[in-house]
């Protein structure tokens, strides 16, 4: 019994930092609707600033004072990020801001490396709190007890702030209805800055408070961000008590998982999240998303049309250029173009459900990697001929998407996104842990194309035909009745249902179709690289695609393809530089600020403006 109690206390102590970070994220999302990927980076900054301050400030006063100051410092940094970057893009399409926060992650990573160096820092101990107290004979670290005591205090303080102060009233009003705040005569910009600063400060405090249990290192940002999102989603986005309950739930479950199912720790929380979302689609204490809240912010899309003669000629010209590329370009360019085409197809498949369907998926890599794995497994274990195995890639990915989509489409908005993320993590953990089948992270290697395709030139044309073919097929479908039905379901699900469209069924088919195309990209990928690893199923892979779609422009048709070409090229050139992450981060932020409708969207607007100016000019 004592053992269970001690394990429970461990879980509670772990919940402290998690709750702090998660409450900050939840607060920011609730008010500003920004999904802040950079929240883990703020947590990491909290840890590094905390370590630095604790080295300067002596004794117990210094220790707790350092923690307090750390939160304030990170709050200021958060405010700066909000003012410099995010404030400019609130009117951009929903979730577009996550691209900017991704840029912030990259910038902070390199800045932290510059300032604090590469070596891990061990966190200082809390003065007077080294060692353990015994509870029913079980040793419990003193600092754990302090953390357990602090957490409810923080929850109460936040509760007081939200329910009893003017700021709190405004925050609640903004969470319910953003427009209302303006009506209350409040400067919305400063409210957002304030909330972002408060949320950042909470992340900073989380980073500083965990120091005596760990330390500061450069991988902390990515290590916590997944868990934090899971906590916020399980609790219900925007709900502080929900974040508290979920942080405790996840931490305690995790502690018991470690003790009784040691292998399970990689996926446990994602299983919990999937289960919660299937039963309660808006998390434990979340509120229902208002219909049309997503993908409907900002100016509406203009009607679409297939390319006219000029567009067709230009497309044909570009394709001819690509087809004749081997004639004059050096061999490596072919490799790079293969990578770009594969990524562009992957991004286009995500764009299809995201842009046309209004379904934001955070787990699209499951189908890219799933397709790659399907083909690779066949080749690796059964020596299936490449041609057959290759066909299996889109097929298996499509079926996988059908299965996953069946669960996910009943949700919408961020919750849909998080459920896709949970499922993609499950697929990842299968590839990662089912070693007898997949060889785990040793991956499947020596997966090369059939002889007639094995060479830079044949494979280049193979990729070009199927990759471009896939992209054009998707484009064609967007203009087909099915594509229109998908758009109808996005624009107004109620209206679509009231005119005989089974919106969920249309969405499911679209999801499966996108999965199939991602799987095709995965198949092209695996035979071009000769190997596949669980990395292709990781969250980072899904986010790569997400970012290029937003970067290219959600409300355009070419957005995914252009974004993928842009990012792959820029990244490929920048990574040879020392501080490439800093530069790439700045490039992304610059694009986001200068082109809030994405590259294609903003260029199109400029072109329209030019044309209008021409027409209005006196003759």
């Amino acid at each position, binding site marked *: 019994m004592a*053992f269970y109690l*001690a394990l429970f206390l*461990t879980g509670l102590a*772990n919940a402290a930092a998690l709750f702090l970070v998660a409450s900050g994220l939840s607060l920011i999302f609730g008010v500003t609707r920004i999904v802040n990927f950079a929240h883990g980076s703020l947590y990491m900054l909290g840890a590094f600033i905390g370590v630095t301050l604790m080295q300067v400030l002596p004794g117990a006063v210094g220790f707790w004072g350092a923690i307090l100051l750390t939160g304030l410092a990170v709050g200021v940094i958060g405010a700066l990020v909000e003012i410099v970057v995010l404030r400019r893009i609130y009117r951009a399409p929903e979730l577009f801001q996550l691209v900017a926060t991704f840029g912030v992650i990259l910038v902070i990573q*390199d800045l932290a490396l510059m300032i604090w160096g*590469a*070596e*891990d*820092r061990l966190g200082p101990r809390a003065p007077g709190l*080294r*060692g353990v107290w015994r509870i029913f004979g079980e*040793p419990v670290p003193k600092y*754990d007890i302090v953390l357990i005591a602090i957490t409810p205090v923080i929850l109460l303080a936040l509760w007081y702030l939200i329910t009893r102060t003017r700021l709190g009233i405004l925050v609640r009003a903004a969470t319910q209805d953003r427009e209302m705040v303006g009506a209350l005569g409040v400067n919305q910009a400063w409210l957002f800055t304030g909330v972002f600063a408060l949320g950042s400060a909470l992340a900073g405090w989380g980073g500083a408070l965990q120091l005596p*249990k*760990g*330390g500061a*290192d450069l991988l902390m940002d990515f*290590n916590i961000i997944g868990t934090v999102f899971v906590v916020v989603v399980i609790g219900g986005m925007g709900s502080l008590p929900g974040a508290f309950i979920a942080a405790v739930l996840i931490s305690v479950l*995790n*502690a018991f998982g*470690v*003790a009784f199912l040691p*292998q399970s*720790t990689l996926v446990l929380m994602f299983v919990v999240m999937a289960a919660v979302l299937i039963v309660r689609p808006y998390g434990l204490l979340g509120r229902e998303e208002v219909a049309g809240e997503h993908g409907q912010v900002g100016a509406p899309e203009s009607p679409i049309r297939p*390319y006219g003669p000029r*567009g067709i000629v230009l497309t044909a010209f*570009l394709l001819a*250029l*690509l087809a004749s590329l081997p004639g004059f370009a*050096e*061999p*490596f360019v072919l*490799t*790079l173009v293969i*990578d*770009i085409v594969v990524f562009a197809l992957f991004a286009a498949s995500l764009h299809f459900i995201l842009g046309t369907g209004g379904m934001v998926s955070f787990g699209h890599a499951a189908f890219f990697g799933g397709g790659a794995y399907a083909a690779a497994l066949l080749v690796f274990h059964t020596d299936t001929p490449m041609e057959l195995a290759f066909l299996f890639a889109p097929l298996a990915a499509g079926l996988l998407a059908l299965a996953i989509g069946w669960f996910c489409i009943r949700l919408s908005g961020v919750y849909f996104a998080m459920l896709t993320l949970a499922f993609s993590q499950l697929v990842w953990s299968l590839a990662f842990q089912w*070693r007898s089948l997949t*060889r*785990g*992270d*040793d*991956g499947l*290697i*020596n997966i*090369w194309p059939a002889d007639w395709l094995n060479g830079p030139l044949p494979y280049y044309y193979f990729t070009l035909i199927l990759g471009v073919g896939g992209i054009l097929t998707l484009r064609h479908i967007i203009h087909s009745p099915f594509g229109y039905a998908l758009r109808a379901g996005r624009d107004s699900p109620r209206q679509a249902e009231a005119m005989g469209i089974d919106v969920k069924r249309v969405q499911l088919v679209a999801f499966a179709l996108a999965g199939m195309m991602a799987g095709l990209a995965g198949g092209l990928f695996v035979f071009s*690289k000769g*190997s596949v*690893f*669980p*990395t292709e199923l990781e969250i980072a892979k899904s986010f790569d695609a997400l970012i290029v779609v937003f970067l290219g422009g959600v409300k355009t048709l070419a957005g995914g393809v*252009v974004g993928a*070409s*842009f990012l792959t*090229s820029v990244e490929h*050139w920048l*990574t*040879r530089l020392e501080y490439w992450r800093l530069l790439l981060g700045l490039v992304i932020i610059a694009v986001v600020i200068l082109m809030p409708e994405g590259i294609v969207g903003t*260029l*199109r607007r400029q*072109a329209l403006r030019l044309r209008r100016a021409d027409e209005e000019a006196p003759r």
Partner: protein
Amino acid sequence: MTLLRRTVLALAAATALTPSTLLAQETDTAPIKIGEINHFKRLAAFAEPYRKGIELAVSEINANGGVLGRPLEFLFRDDQGDPAEAVRIAEELMTRDGAVMLTGTILSNVGLAISSFAAEKHYVYLASEPLADTLVWGSGNPYTFRLRTSTWVQAAMLAEQAASTDAIRYATIAPNYAYGTEAVAAFKANLTRLKPEVEFVAEQWPPLFNIDAGAEAQALERAKPDAIYNVTFGTDLAKLVREGTDRGLFDGRDVYGLLTGEPEYFEPLGDEAPEGWFVTGYPWYDFAEGTPGGDFVAAYEAMFGETPKNGSNVGYLTGLSVAAAIERAGSTETEAIRAAFEDLDIPDTPIGPLHYRALDNQSTLGAFVGTTELNAAGEGVMVDWSYKDPAPYMPSDDEIRAMRPAE
């Protein structure tokens, strides 16, 4: 509108098409280029010392007239820890930047991706730091050579020590990925062979760099083992040591730590470094002046103003190995370099003579084993250490031949 949209596409493609500025000049004095691919950013804590080790080796080699009369140059490229990215960079380094062979990577999966690619394209690849033994055994190929001491061998060294004690009940804790499972399997196989009566009473698998150390320590304690075998490293190790020490997990128990004594992981522990663990590591602080090891340490400190890590040593040996192989090949042709690596002997290195076995392309880099202790300055160090040659711990030649795919 359409025109503009298309122009963007064309522009994006054009950035990819800019002709290379760095077409290798094949002249007698042009540098010999080596393509080094690593996760310089993602695993900065481990990759930076490694890179510095290479830089030291290169500066010494070039000061002594270079290789084949030409200067040696490493092209460092960051793969973000992504195997697919690494493969593309490998291709670019070889076909465009004029590299004559490839080196690098810490993460085993990236190493395996490059290895498979190298075999297919017939590029020589020296896997300097990846830990997975399958690189040279189960998935070995003629074009991939491996420098770093194999996991099997290091685990066997610890198992040998463990077998000499009375401990029967063992608990293991290892990060939940390929290296962790391989390290535990190797320890179990070696220990059960040496002492069949041992029992493994708990196996803990924390996620890499995301350990819940408190719960792990409790789970280990609950199994009441006589001894613990630890494979965690980096921040996981620091947290485990802290929670374990506080909760008395290590009191009265033998602890074996794979890589635990490497400065990368041991130094950050400061005065909380555990005492009495039997570990593999890199005790640079004890290398006497005038010995090859001591000279390396002195040169490294002089060049970078910091003390070397284990990665520095591996990086330095990478530089020496590449230079020796090309010198022996007498040319920069792939097949010549590949042939030169087989049974390559490098007599003078900081760790003594180094040899690349023709059998499995594995180097004979051994490991330092010893017991941890806090020195007078409150720093964790290895004492009573010795440098062990890997040969006695290797599987037999026949076993290795059976594992390696037919060439």
